[in-house]
């Protein structure tokens, strides 16, 4: 196999892999709520409830801070 053929195969499989990653990510975003109870739409509230006295949408616990 010469270098050009090798590059062409590499290009094809890399593209196919990237497409899989992209669709995998979309799949994850849309199934996360059902599977793990993680609703990505809730994060939109971070901008709306952003006063310093507002409760964080997802608080960092004190242990994590240490």
């Amino acid at each position: 196999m010469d270098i050009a053929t090798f590059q062409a195969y590499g290009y094809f499989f890399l593209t196919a892999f990237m497409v899989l990653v992209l669709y995998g990510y979309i799949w994850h975003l849309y199934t996360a709520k059902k599977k793990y109870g993680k609703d990505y739409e809730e994060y939109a509230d971070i901008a709306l409830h952003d006063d310093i006295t507002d409760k964080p949408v997802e608080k960092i616990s004190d242990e994590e801070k240490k």
Partner: protein
Amino acid sequence: MENRPLEYDYSVAKMFMLSTVVLGIVGMLVGVILAWQLAFPGANLFLGEALGEYTNFSRLRPLHTDAVIFGFTLSGVFATWYYVGQRVLKVSMAESKLLMFLGKLHFWLYLVGVAAVVVSLVLGITTSKEYAEFEWPIDIAIVIVWVIWGLSIFGLIGIRRERSLYISIWYYIATFLGIAMLYLFNNMEVPTYFASGGIGAWYHSVSMYAGTNDALVQWWYGHNAVAFGFTVPIVAMIYYFLPKESGQAVYSYKLSLLSFWGLMFVYLWAGGHHLLFSTVPDWMQTMGSVFSIVLILPSWGSAINMLLTMKGEWQQVASSPLIKFMVLASTFYMFSTLEGPIQAIKSVNALAHFTDWIVGHVHDGVLGWVGFMIMAALFHMAPRVFKREIYSKSMMNSQFWIQTLGVILYFTSMWIAGITQGMMWRAHDEFGNLAYSFIDTVSVLHPYFTIRAVGGTLYLVGFLMFAWNMYKTMTAGRRVEESELQNATPMAA
């Protein structure tokens, strides 16, 4: 005033708001002077022949581009970061003395950098690389400023209360990382004085790359300066300010994430479209074209997401000039991210390249999208940082229409000028002789150049109204309580 245990600290945001307005006036004023010089060349000597060296088009042009990119836009990016960053991470700058020190250091060093840039460009000291004109000592200063900004970003993230990073934060991080990488690689330069053992000026340098390689790195940088300076941080702004001002959650948060990763992956490969029909390898040119077309998807993903965020609330566009600015910004984003890919198609580019259509494209993007969004962000921030309502809503409305008219006159005149230019340049007779000389095109384009100068002047007039409104808000606006600052920005009639 209400009794609140902790407040966000906007000292650094305020400083950058001021530099946004001042550098915006400088950058746009120089732009308008350039536009009149193009229409009426006598204006090159508007301060007399003795000062002609400093006032001619070629001396002022980099001052215009760098003042609006690195002055106005970056100041706006920093101002909004020091505002939005605290709010969506739910942590105050006042909670960390170190971050406050870094923030202020960031501003003052940035100002030193700006002064050095202005002086060196006016004196004609330049590397001659577009949007990368600064000589190596200034480059080093800029890198230091950038690293300090990075420390501020990651420092604030490190002490946050909100676990998840809001979508705008991702865009700000991408701005930081993207520009850092681009700036370092494109500004690799050899200081000639030191390399030659003492020949020439100590501050002079030449690019480390040569010929086609230099062009490739330059346009990988140049196009992505648009990506990570004019797109990514402005998207960060609209994802925060439009939902906040309208009180509507982002239409689809999932789509915002997907568009983010799409934009990150695709944008970096599109720069080759600046070098179509040049000496770079053909496959690179094709790749630049293809990735430019694919770029429509993530760009429109964000823009449509913003327009759909207004779903059911379109009456706000009519009632609030601030929402008007943002919706028009989003629309101009869609418009210029469709126009750009069309220009990147090889057959279209054969006509458009080097013509004024490209200049028109840049300006419908920066005037309509970047400028409108930054002004909207500052209008939203002003009452919150100064605790005063916007001084005049009617002035905002007038400003909106004056500037919209300015943008439309600008890009329509440049479309006509560019396409006319492209057609005339390649017109030939039956023997293959060119039908026109360059000066023929210049005479034909004169009316359009004048219209462009009028459009630019209108935009500058609007910007001065914005500056005045901000100044009056800061000094004479009615004082407001925190409870009045939830969503829609308070404005006096």
